[in-house]
């Protein structure tokens, strides 16, 4: 009985052996977890992603002053007589009535479509400049003050140098930045993965031809290429499928970046595939009669994608910087007119441009307060995004590359 009982007793529970790839992931996570900085980066990224999800429920900001409501007023236009009430409904589609705050020019703001818009920057001789309607001239400090951030801070329409809602732009910037970065680098990485894998696996003429194409694309400067692509798309009258003209330009922005991005990945993957395809398990798969496609996509590609993850996470952070550079070159209101483009890089660039205008009009010794928050917070968002992505990438590399493990 007792013997029988012993036999019937359940065997000690053996831990099931994990799938090797899962085991590797667990190992990676183990090493990743011990890297505090990488964890911080991950946390910030998760925060940004959460913000992005929340931002999707929020309306788009009016990001640039709608010119059709205000172009013909204010001392900036020498022919205008101020104040000049303007009823909308013109050819550009402003169908609402714009009114102005009834007050003297320095403190005037424009109320349009439920929001406050730009205040005139000039008063009289262009010396004493106030920049926001609700900051009285008395607290413009001299000579080199930074302006006090107004009460209510970012959540109000500041009506400062640039007439956009900083808070709302930053909020929507979370999802726009993420969407742009991930889609651009994602497309680039996918194409690069395919091209690199095919070139590395088949070798010979295919490899030569593909790598020459990669060389060609690698020698085109990134920003210039995107400039050309977007300009061409903007000047051509064609629109793509269901997209309107503006969406076509935004789409071409993505396509332009992706076109210059894939060759880096193609090179990276090719180098990795060249190593992996000589491994024993590939030989074993070939011996057991696996087809070429199966060998490539089941054995070689999954084992050569790790460098892609590292590079991917690194590149995602640089996209907003590059888009900011583009906008700084003049791709904001000019090529995307009347459209909010709340991408963090773009917001920062527009802020910089407007700040330069502001400082140019502002003769410092006579005093003008600098609306620093318009530059600081977009810059901070940009910086946080890029640096968290960087930390993440560093942690990933340390966890994935055993040679670099500390």
């Amino acid at each position, binding site marked *: 009985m007792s013997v029988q009982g012993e036999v019937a007793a359940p065997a000690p529970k053996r831990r099931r052996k994990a799938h090797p790839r899962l085991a590797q992931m667990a190992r990676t996570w183990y090493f990743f977890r011990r890297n505090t900085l990488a964890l911080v980066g991950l946390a910030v990224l998760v925060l940004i992603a959460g913000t992005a999800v929340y931002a999707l429920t929020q309306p788009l900001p009016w990001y640039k002053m709608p010119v059709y409501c205000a172009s013909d007023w204010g001392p900036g236009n020498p022919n205008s007589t101020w104040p000049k009430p303007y009823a909308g409904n013109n050819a550009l589609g402003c169908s609402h009535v714009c009114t102005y705050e009834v007050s003297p020019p320095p403190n005037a703001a424009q109320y349009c479509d439920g929001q406050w818009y730009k205040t005139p920057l000039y008063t009289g001789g262009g010396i004493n400049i106030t920049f926001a309607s609700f900051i009285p001239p008395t607290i413009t400090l001299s*000579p*080199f003050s930074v302006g006090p951030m107004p009460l209510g801070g970012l959540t109000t329409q500041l009506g400062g140098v640039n007439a956009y809602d900083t808070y709302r732009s930053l909020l929507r910037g979370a999802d726009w930045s993420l969407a742009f970065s991930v889609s651009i680098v994602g497309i680039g990485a996918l194409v690069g993965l395919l091209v690199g894998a095919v070139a590395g696996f088949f070798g010979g003429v295919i490899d030569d031809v593909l790598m*020459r*194409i990669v*060389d*060609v*694309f*690698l*020698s*085109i*400067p*990134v*920003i*210039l*290429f995107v*400039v*050309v*692509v977007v*300009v*061409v798309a903007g*000047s*051509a*009258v064609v629109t793509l499928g269901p997209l309107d003209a503006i969406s076509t330009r935004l789409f071409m922005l993505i396509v332009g970046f992706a076109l210059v991005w894939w060759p880096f990945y193609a090179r990276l993957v090719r180098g990795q595939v060249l190593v992996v395809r000589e491994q024993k398990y590939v030989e074993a798969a070939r011996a057991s009669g696996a087809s070429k496609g199966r060998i490539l996509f089941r054995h070689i590609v999954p084992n050569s994608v790790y460098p892609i993850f590292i590079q991917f996470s*690194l590149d995602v*952070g*640089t996209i*907003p*910087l590059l888009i*900011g*550079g583009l906008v*700084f*070159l*003049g*791709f904001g209101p*000019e090529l995307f007119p009347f459209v909010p483009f709340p991408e963090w*890089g773009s917001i*920062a*660039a527009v802020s*910089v441009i407007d*700040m*330069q205008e502001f*400082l140019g009009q502002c003769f*410092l*010794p006579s005093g003008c307060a600098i609306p620093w928050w318009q*530059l600081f917070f977009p*810059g901070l968002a*940009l*910086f946080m*995004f*890029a*640096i968290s992505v*960087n*930390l993440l990438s560093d942690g990933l590399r340390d966890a994935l590359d055993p*040679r*670099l493990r*500390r």
Partner: protein
Amino acid sequence: MRMATYIVRRLLLILPVLIGVTTITFLLFTSLPVSYQLLAHFGVPGQKAPCGGYFPSCDCEEINPHSVSNTTCQCPATVTSPATNTTPYASCPNPLYVSDVHQLGLDKPIPVQWATYIYNSFTFQWGTVSNNSYIVNHGGVAFIADVPVVTVLSWFLPYTLELAILSLIIILAIAIPLGNASAVNRNRPVDQLSRVMSFSGYAIPAFLLGSFLVVGLTLILLPTVGLTSHQPWCPGGEPLTQEFTYSWPQGGKACYPHQLLFPENYPHWLTYGVISHPTGFPTVDAMIHGDYWLALDSIIRMIVPALVIAYGTVAGLLRFVRNSMLEVMNLDYVRTARAKGVPEKAVIRRHAGRNSLNVTITVLGLTFAFFVGGFPVIESVFHLWGVGELLAYSVVPNIDFAMIFGSTLLFTFLVVGANIIVDVLYAFLDPRVRIG
């Protein structure tokens, strides 16, 4: 293989790359509307042109006044204007449009157009600067209107090249020692410092950093040195703050060449035209003329922009230098060198350092396209004169297609050339490349 053979072979290999690059540019160029292509190639037609522009067709009256129904106009059809719906007008093909389309070969099949475009690109027929472009109307450089793009680029390229050389020197002077030091002192403060530098260089866009520096330096310099100071090289006086921030003087206070609109402010030799401008490089020209203050002036103006460029580029370079140095330090011959008693400094510099240089140069070559692509932004932040500034001016309306395509071609050719130099350097540093 001998070095010369290697170089010749490498030079032959760039031909397909150049053709590929121009093909891509051609594909983009052909997708422009025909009128824009004509504008980019021939410039804006003058006032006397029929219809005043490159419209495919125009009213008979515009071509041949007082003869709307005249047979000399040879109008194919009488069209009713959809806009007015009342006055019928005769429409003719625009003769200028027709002849220029024919001259540029746009009526030929695409492969022929492609061949023509490549021929034009290689023979530097890159089109004409539009006299409607922003830089002509607002940038204060009216002298570049209606001039071939290549000519304008050749005026401005030396400025960009000087900036590029200066920033390359700074980049190498920072990246190599710092990368080596951080590899040798792994996980020590130097290493952490270089990591922080690398991270932040990735995360701060150049236009933001540059603008902060412009504003910051202005604020710092203004109260200490006053608004204007008279310097030996600028008797008229210019704001000293602009010396470091706005690299080429604005307004009428130029001390240095670049405002042909105000020739009285120039050093006398600069107004004499090409003969007194032997190289085109501002610093070199000033030196040739013995104007040493001016040479110093033009270098000082480039320092801050070059530092900003270097900051971004070094960030990308540092981790490669560090990693390659780490790998080399673990190799056997380094251990051998140590074992036979070579001093540690010599081991690091002569044995390990030289071999990790290969990777540095390769990565520099690979990222050169990024490096060059950053110039438009930097030059427009600091108001530097150069090709990038031209490009920045030509993307705002009215868009100057000739300038955009021309500077893209130029930068691409520059990158290809730089890659050749990198390859030759690589072969020089690592004999295995040319032997194997």
